[in-house]
């Protein structure tokens, strides 16, 4: 069984797989009740893919993202990132993984309020190995003229674009976005999605977007639908649509 799985993974690397998961389960044990957040998830994500995870609240998509992003550990199963078993990493190595390979974008931006847009990006580029210059990263998300503003002086959409710039400036191999447009109106949401799409295309960063907004699925290469802690279906989208063509 193990041998077969490893062979599969070896094959997967050959065919450009960046990250794989096998048999992921996650049980939250609160003492009185056991909540099964994930019930055996297998997946392979290729370099440069843009994946949208769809599913109702509590279906396990955030839990999956947390585990793939190195924020949480599965109860069972393993995650392989470029041939290394992420699930065996120590806390310190997990931090390194997040630091050098992963970009995060949160629903509520999570910018540091005491730092300007440019400084928020610099916060990450200072600890990265081969970063994009903060100014350039902000330029990519169309905020070059706002880079000396503090978060409190920016709109929600602008703040989220700073978050995108912050996430991509380290040139991550993989970008995790948890409801990136959840707190935005549709017009601003589109701006943010355009920024994400642009980054995915230009930098080739593998991108995972969690959403329960079905419309966003149209911009993905593949759509994973979640239900009760499992992947219910995987849909391959023929032609990715531009965010501006999406409506919700």
């Amino acid at each position: 069984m193990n041998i077969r799985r490893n062979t599969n993974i070896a094959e997967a690397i050959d065919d450009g797989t960046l990250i794989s998961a096998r048999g992921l389960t996650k049980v939250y044990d609160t003492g009185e009740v056991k909540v099964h957040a994930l019930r055996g998830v297998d997946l392979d994500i290729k370099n440069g893919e843009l994946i949208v995870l769809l599913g109702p609240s509590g279906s396990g998509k955030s839990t999956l993202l947390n585990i793939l992003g190195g924020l949480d550990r599965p109860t069972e199963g393993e995650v392989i990132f470029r041939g290394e078993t992420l699930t065996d990493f120590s806390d310190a190595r997990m931090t390194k993984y997040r630091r050098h390979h992963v970009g995060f974008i949160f629903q509520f931006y999570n910018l540091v309020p005491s730092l300007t847009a440019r400084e928020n990006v610099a916060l990450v580029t200072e600890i990265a190995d081969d970063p994009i210059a903060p100014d350039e990263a902000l330029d990519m998300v169309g905020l070059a003229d706002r880079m000396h503003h503090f978060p409190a002086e920016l709109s929600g959409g602008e703040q989220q674009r700073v978050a995108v710039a912050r996430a991509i400036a380290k040139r991550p191999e993989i970008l995790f976005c948890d409801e990136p447009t959840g707190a935005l109106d549709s017009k601003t949401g589109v701006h943010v999605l355009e920024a994400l799409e642009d980054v995915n295309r230009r930098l080739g960063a593998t991108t995972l977007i969690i959403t329960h907004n079905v419309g966003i699925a149209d911009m993905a290469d593949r759509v994973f639908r979640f239900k009760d802690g499992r992947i219910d279906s995987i849909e391959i989208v023929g032609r990715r649509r531009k965010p501006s063509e999406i409506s919700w």
Partner: protein
Amino acid sequence: MSFISAIDRKLIRDLIHLKGQALAVSIIVACGVAIMVMALGTLSSLQQSQETYYDRYRFADVFATVKRAPDSLARRVREIEGVRVAETRISRYATLKIEGFNDPANALLVSVPDFGEQILNRTLMHTGRWPDAKRPDEIVASKSFVDAHGFELGDQLTAIINGRARLLTIVGIGDSPEYIYTLGPGNLLPDDKRFGVFWMRRKALEAAFDLNGAFNDISLVLGRNAKPNSVIDELDRILAPYGGLGAYLKEDQLSNAFIESEMNQLKNMAKIIPPVFLLVSAMLLNALLIRLIATERQQIGLLKAFGYTSPEIAWHYVKLALAITLLGIVMGFGFGAMLARLMTNLYGDTFRFPVMIFTFSKSSFAFSAGAAIIAAVAGALNASLSAARLQPAEAMIPAPPESYRRGPIQKFSARLPFDEPTRMIMRHLVRWPGRGATTLLGVAAAQALLIGTLFMFDSLDVMLDTFFERTDPYEAMVNFVEPIGSNAIEELKDLPGVISVEASRTVAAKIRHGPRFERAGIIGLPGNAVYKQILNENDEVFPVPEEGLTLSSQLAKMLDVGIGDQLTLEILEGRRPTIISPVTAMVNEYISSPAYMNINRLNQHLFEGEVVSGAFIKLDPSQSDQFSKAVLDRPVIASVTLQSAAIKSFEDTLEDTISIMMSIYAVIGGAIAAGVVYNAARISLTERGRELASLRVLGFTRHEVSYILIGELVILVLLALPLGCLFGAALAYVFGQAMSSELFRIPIVIEPATYGVCALIVLVAAIGSAVLVSRRIGQLDMIAVLKTRE
């Protein structure tokens, strides 16, 4: 049906949630309360013990010594208006020879009536019996002396009484309210091995000192309406022809003065230290509540929407502060009671009360609790009122994000070459100056308190150093039974081990300046004295001026005189001349408040020729035993004091006390620093938890994130240290002034090492609590951050 209302349940849960911070504040309150309870508790124990002892053993109100007065004079004294009881006695020094103990020792011989007991200053008999009136060599010895030598009833020792060796037998062991603090001649501290009080029958002492039908000491008890000063004047007038050395009130009685001075120090301690703690606790409560109310905005809105009134909301948060304070009060009571017991026991070693009554002053509990509660309400009021002012609708909207905006400071800081985490620290400091100031002041207060208390050990060092190394660098001091011709000095020079001898002549005098007067000893010294020296204001040695009187600055202050002022000196010995003399110099003295005069000039004033009353001696240390033995055989010597013994007794006595007191102060000072930093760190962590967790998600290590949290505190603590040194120096000054008395003056000296040690204690406490909090960074919930909005 529940006994606790829902809102009080919330209060209890809030408290449990805040337990670390609440406890830190409670501990600071506890320290303040404990010190007040300790100081006032010890004070009331001392007071009670003293009062009971004085009362039961009839400590006198007025004391006077004469050269020799007929017994019949007592009747005239009793006729003075206001005098209720007068009792005469004989009281003289003797030197002792104790088998197996080579150092010279001294005893004060005090007479008891031939039949029965004293009326005043009665002896408390621990064991044994009174001396038999027919056996002149029986004594009752003071307990501390007996204990120090391990004597038992029936043991014998030799005393040189008025030049004759006598074998005395201990038949009783006693104590007296006059010698609660037993100081031998020339001693700075009680030295039980080298000084004792012996009570003997009057007849025995009359014979020994050739005082048949006469007395040399008298004690009075005054009536309720007596005017003490006029009694003293009248008594001095009556005793003057008989060589009266000046009567004095019990306030000036040596043992009593030391106890009073100690009690005064306790009072000052209770006044000065606890407010510092309560101030810090009030500041911390304020910071804690402001933060709590910010996180509970929506709950407050909800409560108001449900119909809770503004006063109810304000009271809710005041109650929280009171609950924290109450815990502190209870801990402080316990801790203070423990410390009071410890202190009372420590005092029991120094002060010879027959029974150390341990009482708690009820008022100390009430007073400290009251002060703590006032501080709590003051600290909580501002924040609680702001909670009460919140409008329900407004409160239920989450607070707007921390608004950092581009201002001149931010623009400037953007240009500084910091990394972003450092920039976060700087901006946060500038953004919340009030909170930074709380931490800064709190830590500075801790540092100040440490300096303000621990500096006393530096002062003590300076006092001792000045005394033993500079002003009194002799090896031995002798006092003669009576002033004697200067050929006695030549005789001393012939004793084994003696390298050189310097004469001194001390006379008792009343020094008058206008309406003010002080009793003081005028010490006559040769102009070229080296074994007893005087220091000017700059601590430089200078010779005793040929002319005029040299005053210690303390005495000058009491008399309100400066250099050039004329003083009237009423000499109380010999021919009792009255001398008008100018003040020609001032000396810096830390111990007692003497006056000096050139010995030749003094002798001229006294019309006594070349007379000496004592001598300072330089010894060959290897022959000090031979010297001790030989000197005791000299008939004319009333007391001998070895400086080496004094140094040793200082070390023995002070070592324990110092280490205990230092640990107590270090712990309480450290507690403030730890509490302040812990609270600041916890508040920062709560407030910025989300921000810091985000950084962890972005790949910052725990240490990198801790840097942001702790870096800010490190800056504040480092800024606080110099400020604390400044405050500490001020506090030391206040303390030094408050603790100084006629008996000693505390020099305000703070060694660099003391600043260092205090800073180190603060740093260790601060770093310890910061590390404690930063460990929580590892537990920050990174997942929650992704989901929740602040």
